[in-house]
């Protein structure tokens, strides 16, 4: 455990960068490769946002979340979303105690620090809405009582891009609640070989192994990191660049509905965290450019022509980034 730096400590950014790097290293003890994904998830973690992870099964999404939970000694809960999952299964409910002859609140798995909502698109809309409400409000209303969810609180929801049969796709308004939509692809050959070696050596069964991951910090330190991320300086030019990129999505041909102001807010939030992860206390246009895709790809609605042409949101965003002039400070 590391002593918390005081706000006046000139080396606090240095401390934050070291902590972030240590987090990254620890996560990679369990998860081989996926550098960009880990970076983006950490950026969202420091920005206090939630992440929608999309990837085919077997890429290590759950492993990533468990490793992240282990690094900061946080409480971790996992909900496997199914079509018969009820909101009370997520939030909790009141049970009748025969002895005391009173109702007692039984908190649901949402009262945790890190929540893995596995295959979030398999649950019906009301259960999704219940979860997304907690994500937005960071509190749960049960039996007339408002119960805050303990900070830090982060939801990592996963969904499978294939097997859409019998799923309930998240509506655009609810997708907007996620700070980032991270796409997890297949690892390259060397990473995959290293992963297979690591997972199969001295292992019985196919249980996920996170024993090698050491806890690095407690919740207060995470909160301090989040405060530092929020204080990273964003120059007017960088802010203007981020806003111009977001606004360009609203007039871009091929996009039916562009990102709203929440998109620009999310982009700048995560840009601050990314700068901190890079060891800087100021953001640059490069931070905006590198995070525009995960921050905006789920906030666009493509036009039918674009969908027919097979162009994805990433293609459109890359075209926008190639056209929007970079700022001058």
């Amino acid at each position, binding site marked *: 455990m590391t002593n918390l730096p005081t706000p006046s400590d000139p080396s606090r950014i240095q401390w934050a960068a070291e902590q972030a790097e240590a987090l990254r290293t620890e996560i990679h003890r369990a998860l081989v490769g996926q550098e960009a994904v880990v970076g983006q998830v950490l950026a969202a973690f420091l920005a206090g946002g939630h992440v929608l992870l999309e990837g085919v099964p077997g890429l290590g999404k759950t492993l990533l979340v468990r490793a992240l939970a282990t690094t900061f000694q946080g409480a971790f809960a996992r909900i496997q979303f199914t079509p018969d999952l009820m909101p009370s299964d997520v939030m909790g409910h009141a049970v009748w105690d025969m002895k005391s002859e009173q109702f007692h609140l039984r908190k649901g798995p949402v009262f945790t620090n890190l929540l893995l909502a596995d295959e979030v698109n398999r649950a019906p809309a009301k259960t999704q809405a219940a979860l997304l409400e907690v994500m937005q409000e960071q509190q749960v209303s049960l039996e007339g009582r408002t119960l805050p969810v303990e900070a830090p609180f982060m939801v990592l929801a996963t969904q499978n891009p294939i097997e859409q049969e019998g799923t309930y796709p998240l509506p655009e308004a609810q997708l907007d609640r996620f700070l980032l939509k991270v796409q997890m692809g297949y690892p390259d050959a060397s990473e995959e070989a290293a992963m297979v070696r690591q997972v199969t050596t001295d292992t019985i069964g196919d249980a996920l192994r996170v024993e090698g991951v050491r806890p690095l910090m407690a919740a207060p330190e995470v909160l301090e990191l989040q405060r530092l991320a929020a204080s990273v*300086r964003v*120059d007017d*030019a*960088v802010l203007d660049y981020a806003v111009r990129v977001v606004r360009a999505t609203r007039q871009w041909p091929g996009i039916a509905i562009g990102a709203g102001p929440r998109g620009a807010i999310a982009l700048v939030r995560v840009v601050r965290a990314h700068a901190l992860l890079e060891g800087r*206390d*100021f*953001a*640059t*246009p*490069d931070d905006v*450019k*590198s995070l525009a895709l995960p921050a905006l790809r789920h906030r666009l609605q493509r036009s039918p022509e674009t969908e027919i042409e097979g162009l994805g949101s990433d293609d459109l965003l890359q075209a926008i*980034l*190639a*056209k*929007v*002039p*970079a*700022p*001058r*400070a």
Partner: protein
Amino acid sequence: MKPGTMGFVPRARTAMEAVDLGLGLLQAHWRPVAGVWGLQVLFLLGLFLPFLFRTPLWCLLGYWWLKPWLDRGVLFVLSRAVFGQSASVWDFLREWRAVHRRGLAAGLLWRRLSPLRSYVLPIFQLEGLHGAGYRQRARVLTRQSAGAGFLLTCSGWLFTLMTLVGFLALLQGMMPPGSRVELWSGFDTMTLGFQWFLTAVGILALTLTEPLFVAGGFGLYLNRRTHLEGWDLELAFRRLAARLSLVVLLLLGARSLGAQEPPPAPDGEPVVQAEGAPPTPKHPAEGPLRPQEEAHQRAQRILKEDPAFRHTEEIRVLSYEPTGREPHWLRSFLDFFFAKKEPAKPSGSRNLDFLKGLWDLIALVGKVMLVGGLLAFVLWLIYRFRHRLGLPVAREPDWEAPAAVAGLDIRPESLPPDVPAAARHLFVRGEPRAALALLYRAALAELVHRKGMEIPASATEGDCLRAAGDHLDPGPAAIFKTLTLTWQRLAYKDDLPTREAFEGLCEAWPAAFGGRS
């Protein structure tokens, strides 16, 4: 037919308009059509039921096969409607024999599956033609609108099918779930009552579509006759005549009507013109052909005597005369293109000469294309692999060096001759931001204009740094990285570099970015 008494406006219509005309007639006279049709259907059912009561499918099949017989009633009503008369069921019964007198057997047997059935029906029913006369007339009438008639028949089939399937789908949709009767399971498995029910549905579908089909074909027939016999012109002239004097009427009648209208047939129907017959010679005095030799001699005589065939023309062509001093390969190459051809032997057949000349031309074009294609391929290979051949590489023509990158002016003319000196001067003067901006944009200008680095206007500092890594050696690349990071700290954090750091950059700048120092 007298155009003045018609129940429609004759004018030259397109095929679609013609079909629409027929449907309009049907719409205007649907009551007598329905009456006549219903009478015929009752007659048919009365005929079928005693024999085919146990086999409704055969009844439906018979109904379908006898449609040409039913069509005659529809056509009877429509043909009266053309003259503005409304035929009744009673009229139809009175004319029963005349309606069915001609071509009924042919219509039900070998012309049953004709793709132009409704189009040619008026020829044998109304014009009373059969045999060779019918064929000749049908050829004339269908010469320009056969495609439309065929499309009409196809549309009729499709429409009937759609109506039938639509009815069946409606029935299937109204069946309660788990119903014992499945419409698509097969006719044999159904009860007799249900079979009759379905047969009635089939008859209904055929009844709904067939009159439309007949009316469309009749519209095409009327339009074709309007084209051929100028009914619209005749009508116009009649109106004109009504307004002019009797003399003019006689003149016009003699000069135009008399020339246009074919002589009427004894029974009042127009006479079929023998369009397929060979044309009569315009100059009967020419007589039969002379013997071939005589004709040839006559042609030769004309060629020699007539000055019109003594026209001379000078034609200049590009040719090659070998001097004997050129190298062998050059001579072969030039021979390939310019070698004189041996004069062609006189041939008895001009057609064959022409074909041979055409073939030679095609061969020459083929040779030129082959050689040209090979040359083009070699040139493309050289261009494609110009990097490996060490040839100078020009920038892509559509790429223009931007005037500004990340808001910084990087045009060479905007830079001072000695960049580090100018930057130092600015720094001393208390403008460290301008000094560092000058160093950075001058470095970018060098990369863009001297190193050929392509930097779009949307490039950020990081993009420039990554691109510079590919164009610079490690030493200059490291200096550019330091310069970029220093610039970023200043630009986005207002973090001024120390004098030592700035001086270090100024000293390293000439070595890294050469040109201007």
